[in-house]
């Protein structure tokens, strides 16, 4: 496994249900338009049409 693959797997573990969306925004350089930077990624996904995806992340907690 090369460094790039290791980094990718490490990053994957950062994107969990409880990851703050402000962290995701910074990491992906995007603006999700949320006023609360502490909002959880899982809650954001659930409110934006990806509830089953949020549920999978919740089940894995």
């Amino acid at each position, binding site marked *: 496994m090369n460094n790039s693959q290791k980094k990718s797997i490490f990053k994957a573990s950062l994107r969990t249900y409880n990851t703050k969306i402000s962290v995701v925004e910074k990491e992906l350089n*995007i603006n999700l338009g949320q006023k609360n930077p502490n909002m959880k*990624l899982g809650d954001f996904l659930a409110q934006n049409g990806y509830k*089953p*995806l949020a549920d*999978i*992340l919740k089940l*894995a907690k």
Partner: protein
Amino acid sequence: MTFDFIKNNILKQNLEISLDHIIILATIAKDKNYNFSEISKSSLRQSIIIHSASIIEGLLFDYIDLIYLDPEYKWKLKSKKVLYKISDTLEIVGGEYHREQIKVDTKTLNIIQLIQILTKNNYISKNLSHNLDKVRILRNGQHLGARDMIQNFSEKDLTFTIQTLKELYIFLQKEYSKINQ
């Protein structure tokens, strides 16, 4: 880790990478700094559907290796001897007819074969089987040459696909828990 019940470490990491990519695509699709056209939105949904189907295939692949499958048989003609040649396309033959067990190499199975075998052996419900097959058909939209129209991947298609992935995930979490007891 999301796929803790998978023992194969390489598969587990590949599943994590695909799920991670789905989350990236799902969040990028909501970026307020970029105004996605309807075609772009459809393509983003298609990418998520393809990666979801890829996860589904990986999960089924792992599951089928854990369970017992009823052996399958086929008849095979040996020592074939042509008795009468009727024409270039028809011969009457004799020989020995043997019933042989088919050795299934699970590593070579594709998603449709995985679904069919698990359904036939009653390991997954008819309903789950039906939903997995619908995801497979959506995933096949990636084959552009086979399309006879411009395919639009809707929010409904996307939600259905991720919902089916969730159904399979929950089902397998329970099944692996039973197997490992």
